[in-house]
Protein backbone atom coordinates (compact mmCIF):
# COMPACT_ATOMS: atom_id res chain seq x y z
CA UNK A 1 0.00 0.00 0.00
CA UNK A 2 1.34 3.41 -0.88
CA UNK A 3 2.57 5.56 1.95
CA UNK A 4 0.41 8.56 2.82
CA UNK A 5 1.46 11.76 1.07
CA UNK A 6 2.24 14.74 3.29
CA UNK A 7 2.73 18.38 2.39
CA UNK A 8 3.73 21.45 4.37
CA UNK A 9 3.53 25.00 3.11
CA UNK A 10 4.15 28.53 4.37
CA UNK A 11 2.21 31.61 3.30
CA UNK A 12 2.74 34.96 5.12
CA UNK A 13 4.92 33.19 7.64
CA UNK A 14 8.28 33.27 9.37
CA UNK A 15 9.44 29.66 9.16
CA UNK A 16 8.91 29.11 12.90
CA UNK A 17 6.17 26.54 12.33
CA UNK A 18 8.38 24.59 9.94
CA UNK A 19 11.19 24.71 12.50
CA UNK A 20 8.73 23.50 15.16
CA UNK A 21 8.07 20.42 13.01
CA UNK A 22 11.83 19.88 12.68
CA UNK A 23 12.13 20.39 16.45
CA UNK A 24 10.19 17.17 16.96
CA UNK A 25 13.74 15.82 16.59
CA UNK A 26 13.83 12.07 16.11
CA UNK A 27 10.05 12.04 15.58
CA UNK A 28 10.69 13.57 12.16
CA UNK A 29 12.30 10.27 11.16
CA UNK A 30 9.10 8.46 12.10
CA UNK A 31 7.12 10.98 10.06
CA UNK A 32 9.43 10.45 7.09
CA UNK A 33 9.13 6.68 7.47
CA UNK A 34 5.36 6.86 7.80
CA UNK A 35 4.66 9.12 4.85
CA UNK A 36 6.14 10.61 1.70
CA UNK A 37 6.60 14.35 2.01
CA UNK A 38 5.73 15.61 -1.46
CA UNK A 39 6.04 19.36 -0.90
CA UNK A 40 7.89 21.30 1.84
CA UNK A 41 9.81 24.34 0.60
CA UNK A 42 11.97 24.77 3.72
CA UNK A 43 13.35 21.25 3.44
CA UNK A 44 12.70 19.76 0.00
CA UNK A 45 13.10 20.94 -3.58
CA UNK A 46 9.59 20.39 -4.94
CA UNK A 47 8.19 23.25 -7.02
CA UNK A 48 4.69 24.68 -7.55
CA UNK A 49 4.52 22.93 -10.93
CA UNK A 50 4.94 19.58 -9.13
CA UNK A 51 1.91 20.38 -6.98
CA UNK A 52 -0.15 21.53 -9.97
CA UNK A 53 0.57 18.19 -11.67
CA UNK A 54 -0.75 16.16 -8.70
CA UNK A 55 -4.17 14.63 -8.82
CA UNK A 56 -6.88 16.24 -6.71
CA UNK A 57 -7.01 14.87 -3.17
CA UNK A 58 -3.79 12.93 -3.71
CA UNK A 59 -2.13 14.64 -0.75
CA UNK A 60 -3.40 12.92 2.40
CA UNK A 61 -2.41 15.58 4.91
CA UNK A 62 -1.32 19.16 4.33
CA UNK A 63 -0.05 21.35 7.17
CA UNK A 64 -0.46 24.95 6.01
CA UNK A 65 1.13 27.71 8.08
CA UNK A 66 1.15 31.44 7.47
CA UNK A 67 -1.58 33.99 6.87
CA UNK A 68 -3.04 34.97 3.48
CA UNK A 69 -2.20 38.47 2.29
CA UNK A 70 -1.16 38.14 -1.34
CA UNK A 71 -2.60 36.74 -4.55
CA UNK A 72 0.08 34.03 -4.60
CA UNK A 73 -0.69 32.92 -1.05
CA UNK A 74 -4.40 32.72 -1.88
CA UNK A 75 -3.65 30.83 -5.10
CA UNK A 76 -1.47 28.25 -3.35
CA UNK A 77 -4.02 27.90 -0.52
CA UNK A 78 -6.68 27.06 -3.13
CA UNK A 79 -4.28 24.76 -4.98
CA UNK A 80 -3.35 22.82 -1.85
CA UNK A 81 -7.01 22.67 -0.81
CA UNK A 82 -7.86 21.00 -4.11
CA UNK A 83 -4.93 18.58 -3.93
CA UNK A 84 -5.39 17.62 -0.24
CA UNK A 85 -7.78 15.30 1.56
CA UNK A 86 -7.10 16.94 4.91
CA UNK A 87 -5.97 20.56 5.20
CA UNK A 88 -4.76 21.78 8.58
CA UNK A 89 -4.44 25.45 9.55
CA UNK A 90 -1.09 25.07 11.30
CA UNK A 91 0.06 27.76 13.69
CA UNK A 92 -1.37 31.09 14.82
CA UNK A 93 -1.00 32.82 11.45
CA UNK A 94 -3.05 30.29 9.49
CA UNK A 95 -5.55 29.90 12.35
CA UNK A 96 -6.08 33.52 13.39
CA UNK A 97 -3.86 35.79 11.25
CA UNK A 98 -0.95 35.84 13.66
CA UNK A 99 1.63 38.60 13.94
CA UNK A 100 1.30 39.48 10.23
CA UNK A 101 -2.36 40.18 11.10
CA UNK A 102 -1.18 43.33 12.88
CA UNK A 103 -0.95 44.79 9.37
CA UNK A 104 -4.75 45.10 9.56
CA UNK A 105 -4.15 48.04 11.93
CA UNK A 106 -2.65 49.88 8.99
CA UNK A 107 -3.23 49.89 5.24
CA UNK A 108 -1.57 48.40 2.19
CA UNK A 109 -0.67 51.89 1.01
CA UNK A 110 0.87 52.91 4.34
CA UNK A 111 2.94 49.73 4.39
CA UNK A 112 4.27 50.27 0.86
CA UNK A 113 5.09 53.91 1.56
CA UNK A 114 6.93 53.07 4.77
CA UNK A 115 8.83 50.07 3.47
CA UNK A 116 9.92 51.45 0.12
CA UNK A 117 10.07 55.20 0.65
CA UNK A 118 9.91 56.49 4.21
CA UNK A 119 12.10 54.04 6.14
CA UNK A 120 15.26 55.91 7.21
CA UNK A 121 17.60 53.19 5.97
CA UNK A 122 16.19 53.27 2.45
CA UNK A 123 18.07 54.38 -0.61
CA UNK A 124 15.31 54.64 -3.20
CA UNK A 125 15.72 58.08 -4.80
CA UNK A 126 13.25 57.34 -7.60
CA UNK A 127 10.61 56.15 -5.14
CA UNK A 128 10.19 52.84 -6.92
CA UNK A 129 7.42 50.59 -5.62
CA UNK A 130 7.04 46.90 -6.45
CA UNK A 131 4.80 46.30 -9.44
CA UNK A 132 2.74 43.28 -10.41
CA UNK A 133 4.28 43.42 -13.89
CA UNK A 134 7.73 44.79 -14.65
CA UNK A 135 9.18 45.07 -18.15
CA UNK A 136 12.83 44.18 -18.46
CA UNK A 137 14.91 44.10 -21.68
CA UNK A 138 14.58 40.32 -21.86
CA UNK A 139 10.85 40.11 -21.26
CA UNK A 140 8.47 40.57 -18.37
CA UNK A 141 8.56 39.74 -14.65
CA UNK A 142 5.53 39.04 -12.45
CA UNK A 143 4.97 39.58 -8.77
CA UNK A 144 1.87 38.72 -6.78
CA UNK A 145 -0.32 41.60 -5.65
CA UNK A 146 -0.80 42.40 -1.97
CA UNK A 147 -4.34 42.41 -0.63
CA UNK A 148 -5.54 45.30 1.47
CA UNK A 149 -6.14 42.91 4.39
CA UNK A 150 -4.61 39.85 6.00
CA UNK A 151 -6.91 36.84 6.16
CA UNK A 152 -6.83 33.51 7.96
CA UNK A 153 -6.64 30.30 5.95
CA UNK A 154 -10.26 29.46 6.73
CA UNK A 155 -11.43 32.79 5.39
CA UNK A 156 -10.10 31.67 1.99
CA UNK A 157 -10.65 27.87 1.83
CA UNK A 158 -12.41 25.25 4.00
CA UNK A 159 -10.14 23.74 6.66
CA UNK A 160 -10.46 20.43 8.52
CA UNK A 161 -8.32 21.09 11.61
CA UNK A 162 -6.66 23.91 13.49
CA UNK A 163 -3.40 23.59 15.42
CA UNK A 164 -2.79 26.92 17.18
CA UNK A 165 0.34 28.44 18.66
CA UNK A 166 3.21 30.64 17.64
CA UNK A 167 4.61 28.17 16.94
CA UNK A 168 2.63 25.08 17.93
CA UNK A 169 4.63 23.37 20.67
CA UNK A 170 6.64 20.46 19.33
CA UNK A 171 5.04 18.05 21.80
CA UNK A 172 1.59 19.08 20.52
CA UNK A 173 2.80 18.41 16.97
CA UNK A 174 3.99 14.95 18.03
CA UNK A 175 0.62 14.31 19.67
CA UNK A 176 -1.26 15.35 16.52
CA UNK A 177 0.94 13.19 14.28
CA UNK A 178 0.28 10.21 16.57
CA UNK A 179 -3.47 10.88 16.39
CA UNK A 180 -3.32 11.04 12.60
CA UNK A 181 -1.20 7.93 12.18
CA UNK A 182 -3.45 5.88 14.49
CA UNK A 183 -6.63 7.21 12.87
CA UNK A 184 -7.80 8.88 16.08
CA UNK A 185 -8.13 12.47 14.93
CA UNK A 186 -10.87 14.44 16.73
CA UNK A 187 -14.01 15.51 14.85
CA UNK A 188 -13.47 17.60 11.72
CA UNK A 189 -13.42 21.28 12.57
CA UNK A 190 -11.61 20.76 15.88
CA UNK A 191 -8.99 23.04 17.27
CA UNK A 192 -6.41 20.57 18.50
CA UNK A 193 -5.48 22.06 21.86
CA UNK A 194 -7.02 22.27 25.33
CA UNK A 195 -10.65 23.12 26.03
CA UNK A 196 -9.56 25.13 29.07
CA UNK A 197 -8.01 28.56 29.06
CA UNK A 198 -4.32 29.24 29.50
CA UNK A 199 -5.29 30.88 32.80
CA UNK A 200 -7.02 27.67 33.99
CA UNK A 201 -3.92 25.65 33.21
CA UNK A 202 -1.48 28.11 34.75
CA UNK A 203 0.05 26.86 37.99
CA UNK A 204 0.82 30.27 39.46
CA UNK A 205 -0.77 31.13 42.78
CA UNK A 206 -4.08 32.89 42.25
CA UNK A 207 -5.65 34.75 45.14
CA UNK A 208 -8.11 37.42 44.32
CA UNK A 209 -8.63 39.04 40.95
CA UNK A 210 -8.75 42.65 42.06
CA UNK A 211 -6.33 45.12 40.50
CA UNK A 212 -5.79 48.67 41.72
CA UNK A 213 -3.58 49.63 38.80
CA UNK A 214 -1.86 48.14 35.79
CA UNK A 215 1.88 48.36 35.34
CA UNK A 216 4.25 48.16 32.42
CA UNK A 217 6.93 45.53 33.07
CA UNK A 218 9.69 48.04 33.85
CA UNK A 219 7.58 49.67 36.56
CA UNK A 220 7.53 46.77 39.04
CA UNK A 221 9.36 43.61 39.96
CA UNK A 222 6.93 40.73 39.88
CA UNK A 223 6.74 37.73 42.18
CA UNK A 224 7.47 34.76 39.90
CA UNK A 225 5.11 32.49 41.83
CA UNK A 226 2.03 34.68 41.73
CA UNK A 227 -0.49 35.38 38.99
CA UNK A 228 0.80 38.19 36.77
CA UNK A 229 -2.61 39.72 36.19
CA UNK A 230 -3.23 39.98 39.94
CA UNK A 231 0.06 41.85 40.23
CA UNK A 232 -1.12 44.36 37.66
CA UNK A 233 0.68 42.99 34.59
CA UNK A 234 -1.63 42.54 31.61
CA UNK A 235 -1.74 38.82 30.83
CA UNK A 236 -4.04 37.45 28.14
CA UNK A 237 -4.33 34.03 29.82
CA UNK A 238 -8.04 34.41 30.66
CA UNK A 239 -8.90 34.98 27.01
CA UNK A 240 -6.59 32.39 25.48
CA UNK A 241 -7.01 28.69 24.76
CA UNK A 242 -4.70 26.46 26.80
CA UNK A 243 -2.47 23.62 25.71
CA UNK A 244 0.83 25.45 25.29
CA UNK A 245 2.29 24.32 28.59
CA UNK A 246 2.41 27.95 29.84
CA UNK A 247 5.72 28.40 28.09
CA UNK A 248 5.64 32.22 28.29
CA UNK A 249 4.55 32.29 31.93
CA UNK A 250 7.39 29.92 32.79
CA UNK A 251 9.74 32.52 31.28
CA UNK A 252 8.08 35.14 33.49
CA UNK A 253 6.43 36.79 30.50
CA UNK A 254 2.68 37.37 30.35
CA UNK A 255 0.58 35.49 27.82
CA UNK A 256 -0.14 37.32 24.59
CA UNK A 257 -2.73 34.93 23.23
CA UNK A 258 -1.04 32.90 20.51
CA UNK A 259 -3.39 29.92 21.00
CA UNK A 260 -6.35 32.04 20.03
CA UNK A 261 -9.68 32.51 21.80
CA UNK A 262 -10.87 29.85 24.26
CA UNK A 263 -13.68 27.43 23.41
CA UNK A 264 -16.98 29.23 23.03
CA UNK A 265 -15.47 32.69 22.64
CA UNK A 266 -16.03 34.45 19.33
CA UNK A 267 -13.75 37.44 19.83
CA UNK A 268 -10.53 37.12 21.84
CA UNK A 269 -9.98 40.85 22.28
CA UNK A 270 -13.50 41.48 23.52
CA UNK A 271 -13.11 38.64 26.00
CA UNK A 272 -9.86 40.13 27.25
CA UNK A 273 -11.38 43.61 27.51
CA UNK A 274 -14.18 42.15 29.58
CA UNK A 275 -11.70 40.31 31.82
CA UNK A 276 -9.67 43.48 32.43
CA UNK A 277 -12.74 45.60 33.11
CA UNK A 278 -14.16 43.09 35.56
CA UNK A 279 -11.06 42.94 37.76
CA UNK A 280 -10.20 46.65 37.86
CA UNK A 281 -11.14 48.34 41.09
CA UNK A 282 -13.28 51.42 40.83
CA UNK A 283 -16.15 52.22 38.55
CA UNK A 284 -16.16 56.02 38.56
CA UNK A 285 -15.36 57.88 35.33
CA UNK A 286 -12.04 58.88 36.92
CA UNK A 287 -11.18 55.26 37.64
CA UNK A 288 -12.07 54.26 34.09
CA UNK A 289 -9.90 57.02 32.63
CA UNK A 290 -7.06 56.00 34.93
CA UNK A 291 -7.36 52.42 33.72
CA UNK A 292 -7.37 53.51 30.08
CA UNK A 293 -4.12 55.40 30.67
CA UNK A 294 -2.56 52.36 32.30
CA UNK A 295 -3.44 49.84 29.59
CA UNK A 296 -1.01 50.59 26.81
CA UNK A 297 -2.00 49.66 23.23
CA UNK A 298 -5.06 47.60 24.20
CA UNK A 299 -6.01 46.77 20.62
CA UNK A 300 -2.50 45.62 19.70
CA UNK A 301 -2.18 43.62 22.92
CA UNK A 302 -5.61 41.99 23.06
CA UNK A 303 -5.60 41.25 19.32
CA UNK A 304 -1.85 40.53 19.06
CA UNK A 305 -2.32 37.23 17.18
CA UNK A 306 -5.95 37.35 16.15
CA UNK A 307 -6.97 40.62 14.50
CA UNK A 308 -8.01 39.04 11.16
CA UNK A 309 -10.01 36.38 13.03
CA UNK A 310 -11.79 38.89 15.25
CA UNK A 311 -15.08 40.69 14.79
CA UNK A 312 -13.09 43.85 14.16
CA UNK A 313 -11.12 42.23 11.30
CA UNK A 314 -9.22 45.40 10.45
CA UNK A 315 -8.95 49.18 10.74
CA UNK A 316 -11.38 51.08 8.55
CA UNK A 317 -10.13 52.24 5.19
CA UNK A 318 -11.86 54.88 3.15
CA UNK A 319 -11.71 53.01 -0.15
CA UNK A 320 -10.90 49.35 -0.51
CA UNK A 321 -10.07 47.84 -3.88
CA UNK A 322 -10.35 44.08 -3.81
CA UNK A 323 -9.85 42.50 -0.39
Amino acid at each position, binding site marked *: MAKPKLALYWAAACGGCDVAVLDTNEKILEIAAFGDIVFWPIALDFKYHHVRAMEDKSIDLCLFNGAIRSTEQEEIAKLLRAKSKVLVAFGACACFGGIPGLANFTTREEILQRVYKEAPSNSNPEGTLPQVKTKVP*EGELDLPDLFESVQTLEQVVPVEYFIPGCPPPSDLIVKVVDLYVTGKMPPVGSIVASDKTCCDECDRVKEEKKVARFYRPHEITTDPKKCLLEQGIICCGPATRGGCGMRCIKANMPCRGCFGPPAGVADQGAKMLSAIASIYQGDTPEAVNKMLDEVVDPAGTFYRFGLPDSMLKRKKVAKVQGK
Partner: protein
Amino acid sequence: MAKISIDPITRLEGHGKIEIFLNDEGEVANTYLQIPELRGFEKFCEGRPVEELPRIVPRICGV
Protein backbone atom coordinates in the same frame (compact mmCIF):
# COMPACT_ATOMS: atom_id res chain seq x y z
CA MET B 1 13.18 34.76 -25.03
CA ALA B 2 13.09 31.31 -23.47
CA LYS B 3 12.74 31.44 -19.71
CA ILE B 4 13.44 29.03 -16.89
CA SER B 5 11.54 29.69 -13.67
CA ILE B 6 12.66 28.38 -10.32
CA ASP B 7 9.51 28.82 -8.24
CA PRO B 8 9.65 28.63 -5.33
CA ILE B 9 13.29 28.64 -4.30
CA THR B 10 13.66 26.06 -1.57
CA ARG B 11 15.67 24.96 1.43
CA LEU B 12 16.03 28.43 2.87
CA GLU B 13 13.80 30.70 4.92
CA GLY B 14 11.57 32.97 2.92
CA HIS B 15 9.88 33.12 -0.43
CA GLY B 16 11.66 33.78 -3.68
CA LYS B 17 11.59 33.02 -7.36
CA ILE B 18 14.30 33.13 -9.95
CA GLU B 19 13.70 33.84 -13.64
CA ILE B 20 16.48 32.91 -16.02
CA PHE B 21 16.20 34.34 -19.53
CA LEU B 22 18.02 32.40 -22.27
CA ASN B 23 19.17 33.86 -25.56
CA ASP B 24 18.90 32.08 -28.93
CA GLU B 25 22.14 30.26 -28.28
CA GLY B 26 20.70 28.86 -25.06
CA GLU B 27 23.05 30.90 -22.92
CA VAL B 28 21.94 32.91 -19.95
CA ALA B 29 21.08 36.45 -21.07
CA ASN B 30 20.01 37.62 -17.61
CA THR B 31 18.70 36.31 -14.30
CA TYR B 32 16.32 37.98 -11.87
CA LEU B 33 15.64 37.14 -8.22
CA GLN B 34 12.25 38.32 -6.97
CA ILE B 35 10.83 38.28 -3.46
CA PRO B 36 7.07 37.75 -3.72
CA GLU B 37 6.20 38.49 -0.12
CA LEU B 38 5.81 41.48 2.16
CA ARG B 39 4.27 41.54 5.63
CA GLY B 40 4.98 45.12 6.71
CA PHE B 41 6.69 44.83 10.11
CA GLU B 42 8.30 48.22 9.37
CA LYS B 43 4.84 49.78 9.59
CA PHE B 44 2.74 47.69 11.95
CA CYS B 45 5.30 47.81 14.76
CA GLU B 46 4.59 51.54 14.99
CA GLY B 47 2.31 52.21 17.95
CA ARG B 48 3.22 49.01 19.77
CA PRO B 49 4.77 49.39 23.27
CA VAL B 50 8.55 49.25 23.11
CA GLU B 51 8.71 46.36 25.60
CA GLU B 52 6.55 44.28 23.24
CA LEU B 53 8.88 44.61 20.25
CA PRO B 54 11.20 41.79 21.43
CA ARG B 55 8.13 39.53 21.30
CA ILE B 56 6.90 40.76 17.91
CA VAL B 57 10.00 41.10 15.75
CA PRO B 58 11.32 37.54 16.25
CA ARG B 59 8.34 36.60 14.06
CA ILE B 60 10.12 38.21 11.16
CA CYS B 61 12.11 34.99 10.96
CA GLY B 62 11.39 31.91 13.04
CA VAL B 63 14.49 30.04 11.90
